[in-house]
């Protein structure tokens, strides 16, 4: 039986297809910095990969800053929670570096080790405790970030990868919306404060 599908020719030019698919499917981000060979192949055959993945029901996104991922609009609550905690982890890391006067755009240069992490924890202890992030949990989250392609483990610490830009973009977007809201003093903001009060009441 001969397969006379137009994809056949293309498939032979995609030797890393299985590896890429497995990587993206597990929710991981591909970073040019961490996996240059895979990235090069993906970039060369970008159209073929995108078309193939779309046919399989996946939305492959490539960012010019050097990372790619399977985009997913919604996720279950577990993943939402994990993502929020990662967001908080990145926030405290960036805030600490910003206080130290480091260039935030060069976050891929930073070496994050456990000593430094515990220092970050001390800086934001109240906030992190309130969200249930203890020093060990911070490290666990970094390990998780490694599995998702936001960071890479090194012999004595971790390094952030360009995929973190997805979080940074969102932070800027959120701050912008927050500023707009406070400028306009929109009813949404009022509603939020009302909710907040009832929440506090419940807690008491």
């Amino acid at each position: 039986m001969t397969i006379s599908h137009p994809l056949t020719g293309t498939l032979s030019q995609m030797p890393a297809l299985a590896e890429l698919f497995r990587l993206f499917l597990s929710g991981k981000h591909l970073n040019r910095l961490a996996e240059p060979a895979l990235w090069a192949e993906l970039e060369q055959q970008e159209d073929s990969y995108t078309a193939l993945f779309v046919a399989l029901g996946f939305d492959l996104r490539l960012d010019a800053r050097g990372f790619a991922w399977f985009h997913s609009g919604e996720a279950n609550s577990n993943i939402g929670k994990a993502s929020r905690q990662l967001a908080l982890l990145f926030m405290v890391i960036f805030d600490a570096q910003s206080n130290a006067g480091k260039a935030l755009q060069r976050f891929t240069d930073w070496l994050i080790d456990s000593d430094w992490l515990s220092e970050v924890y001390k800086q934001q202890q109240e906030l992190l405790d309130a969200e249930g992030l203890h020093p060990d949990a911070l490290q666990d989250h970094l390990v998780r970030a490694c599995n998702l392609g936001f960071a890479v483990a090194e012999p004595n610490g971790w390094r952030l990868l360009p995929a973190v830009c997805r979080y940074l973009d969102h932070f800027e977007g959120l701050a912008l919306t927050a500023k707009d809201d406070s400028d306009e003093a929109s009813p949404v903001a009022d509603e939020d404060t009302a909710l907040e009060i009832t929440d506090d009441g419940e807690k008491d």
Partner: protein
Amino acid sequence: MRLSREFAVLTSDQVLNSIARVSAQADVEAQGAVLRALVNANILQTLPRSSDLQLNAYVLEFVRGLTREHELGLAAVLQARVIAIREATEVLNEGMAEADMDRVRSAANKLAELFRQISLQLDQDRHALLELAENAKSADSSMPISQRYRRVLEAYDQYVEPMNQMMDTGPQGTFYHYLEDAEHALDLGLERLSVQGVLYSHRLQLRQVAHQAKELRRFGRLVAQQCADTLLPLREELRQHNVLSSAISLLLGQVRKRGLRRALSRYTDNTALPVWRNERGFKLQLGDEVRMVMAAARAYQPQAVVFPQDEPSEAMQLLEHVEEAAIRAHLARSLPVEDLLDWLNSHYADLQDATLLRLFHDLQHEPDWQFEPAAHPVKTRLQTIRVLHHPHRVSTPE
């Protein structure tokens, strides 16, 4: 040379040390001799009221020219020279109007000198700016960003901005305008001089200066462009740094006040909290059974099935031809009948059950006959079904 960048004034010990570094094999006495020779040649000058030494300014300038290590000049100096161009151009125009060749020549000389100085300064400034940017980029990234980029930002505000204003080709840009005026004046002068017929050397001089002016205009634009291209990305990096850090502190403040989930739940236009699918990679292995199915599928031979030609059609019976008029006539002759269904069944047993029942119901609506149901139900067995019913007595009304 390198020392002189860090210390404006050198002590004799410092100089001796650097001499020792350059020529290590020389003994102390020989090094002292070198120092004295330098001082005698006026390369090193002793400062008044102290025994400290300073590099001769001309030497310093010359060596900097060779190694392209310049300090960034002042935009104001450039501005002053640009204004001087305007004055020289006025003098040139006046000289032309009065046909005073001496004034024309001296004005042209002045312009040439100004052009030379300006292009020299532009070139030096360009190298100084490139070096600033390189230093900022290569500086230790653990150094606070504001400190690393302080000189770049200063250079941008104090030099590149005013430069850009000067180079602006619009009504604001002084440099471009004055230079253009000077160029016009020179071209016009050259033309009139060739019409009037003056010494060839005079015309040549004017023409050379005019060429210089054209070249300077091109070069000036180039330098301004290069400076902006070099410094803008750095400035942009700092700006983004500030945007990001303020965004993060704002968000952290919200998390503190409202909790993480609420702080991050706000809807934004273009961005979203990154989420991912939770699908672990799975493998689908086809069993050997599938191969057998495929083999069977490849060896498939369709079996020939003969279509039945003429079979007595059962379907015909669904629609029976019933001669209802005949049945009514028959029933009318047989009246009175004690049990209508029984009667139908006994006389027309070959009809289907459904047809028989339909007839049974239809006949009951006959207005000419009288129907009386019996008090007790009985069972009547038809072809395939058994019917429990009250027997209907049919008779003609009295």
